[in-house]
């Protein structure tokens, strides 16, 4: 089971697309955090594996709480015989050498928000006072990348930065050397035809880069989610609702007040999501509500049945669906438009590289040598 803890709603940045409602002094008390850790571990005894993700806001604002919860959870997990994995989603602005050492020691997976080139990062991810955050984020990046065992960079692609996707990808993966990059299109934004056309142009350029990198750097395994995730989805035979965001059953998010929500976007907007509260860390789960939410999530996506791409595109995220359409099982049209454009490009890459017997590609997709990091 996977628990995501909203350690704070406070953040150092003021990102244009952030879906988390911010409150300056809304922190999760340590007692709530510890109870949340206990809850996920106790519910994971049978499965013998658990994951705790620290989320926010910027979770390193509560580094003291993070440390205490981690130590507590490690001891409890060992006592219960549960294998524990830890994960943090951070904007990187508070990273210090001390934090990096701790991350390395505790083997945390780090999901670093980084939109790419300075212009993209600074445009969408400014500090609260308005100045750009790029310099602060990359300041300790080489050390973080060197010491952290698991690190993935996650970018949000908005209409304002779509035209920089190619440059940002090359900057993150070629210049900064991060080999796992996950650009995520902001489907809550107001995209228009021109914006999607810009994305398509970027995808086509990136396809050539992907081919070239696969062909010329044969020992340099990399994972570029825009293409690789869609290819993997086909090779695996397609995904179904519940394969990932198994809300109501295997994943939950704990708001700073202890209320339990299905996932991060619900907990990020607790007032709007009041009808989705699945329990509280003090009283445990409301099983009827959990079952209700799980059953809803496992339904076929209402507007995707019969589509050849069903199972290939990311229609399964109930949080995103709910956030954009109001229904967990109704997919936003802009997602459909983008994925319909992107998947054939990814498939062309796959066909070409398979025909060439490209070793990087084959190792990545037909052997278990490269896998993505899942992100929250």
């Amino acid at each position, binding site marked *: *089971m*996977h628990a995501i803890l909203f350690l704070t709603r406070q953040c150092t940045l003021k990102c244009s697309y952030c879906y988390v409602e911010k409150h300056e002094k809304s922190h999760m008390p340590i007692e709530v955090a510890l109870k949340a850790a206990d809850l996920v571990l106790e519910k994971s005894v049978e499965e013998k*594996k658990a*994951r705790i993700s620290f989320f926010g806001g910027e979770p390193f604002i509560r580094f003291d709480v993070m440390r205490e919860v981690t130590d507590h959870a490690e001891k409890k*997990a*060992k006592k219960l015989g549960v*294998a*524990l994995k830890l994960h943090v989603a951070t904007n990187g602005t508070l990273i210090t050498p001390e934090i990096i050492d701790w991350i390395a020691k505790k*083997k945390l*997976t780090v999901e670093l928000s980084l939109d790419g080139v300075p212009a993209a990062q600074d445009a969408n991810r400014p500090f609260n006072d308005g100045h750009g955050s790029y310099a602060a984020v990359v300041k300790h990046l080489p050390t973080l990348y060197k010491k952290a*065992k*698991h*690190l*993935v960079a996650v970018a949000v692609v908005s209409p304002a930065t779509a035209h920089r996707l190619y440059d940002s990808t090359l900057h993150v993966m070629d210049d900064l050397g991060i*080999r796992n990059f*996950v650009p995520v299109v902001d489907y809550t*934004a*107001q995209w228009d035809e021109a914006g*999607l056309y810009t994305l398509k142009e970027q995808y086509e350029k990136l396809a050539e880069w992907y081919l070239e990198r696969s062909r010329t750097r044969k020992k340099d*395994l990399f*994972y570029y*989610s825009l293409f690789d995730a869609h290819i993997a*989805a086909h*090779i*695996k*035979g397609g*995904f179904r609702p519940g*394969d*990932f965001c198994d809300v109501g059953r*295997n*994943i939950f998010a704990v708001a700073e007040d202890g209320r339990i929500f299905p996932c991060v976007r619900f907990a990020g907007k607790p007032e709007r999501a009041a009808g989705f509260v699945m329990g509280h860390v003090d009283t445990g789960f409301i099983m009827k509500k959990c079952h209700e939410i799980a059953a809803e999530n496992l339904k076929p996506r209402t*507007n995707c049945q*019969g*589509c*050849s791409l069903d199972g290939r595109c*990311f229609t399964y*995220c*109930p949080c995103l669906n709910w956030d954009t359409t109001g229904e967990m099982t109704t997919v*936003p*049209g*802009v997602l*459909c*438009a983008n994925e*319909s454009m992107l998947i054939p490009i990814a*498939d062309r890459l796959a*066909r070409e590289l398979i025909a060439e*017997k490209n*070793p990087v590609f*084959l*190792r990545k997709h*037909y*052997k*278990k*040598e*490269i*896998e*993505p*990091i*899942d*992100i929250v």
Partner: protein
Amino acid sequence: MNTNFQVRKVTGYDPGYPVGRRRPGRLEARPLKFLFLVVGFLFFFVGFGCTNKVETTGVQVADDDNIAADTTVTPDTAQPDMDDLQGVTDPDFPLDDDAAIPDADEVLVPDYDDQLAGELVPDFDEAQPDIAPVDYDDVLTGDAIPDALLPDIETPDYDDQLSGVVAPDDDYLK
């Protein structure tokens, strides 16, 4: 809500490349077990069951060519331990590990006749004979080697706990 776009179903689309994530050790586990089972039975019957020659008089005659003719010696007919055999033969495939058994919904169900006939399709090992052994420094997945936080607990797969953004499994990349 963005209302500029509507969902449009795509029909008749073919990606044009093979489905079926091949997990070494999983896909081959079942055919290997089957193969060893067949070999075991053949060994049992050919090696012991068919070596005693008996004349019509009922007097057993020694077969100079076969030490098994001495029926005073009780043959070792114990069924070979399949797991032992497999472990010795191919240590890369931990066949005694439950995790190595393919999940029906994840792995192509092999046709044993085809497997024994050497027609395993697709075989990407053949397609890339020059691939060097895995260098874990090169591999992005730090968890290719299990690294459970607890030393006495096996690192699990998190196939079922991914977010809505990337593909499954979290042998993490770095």
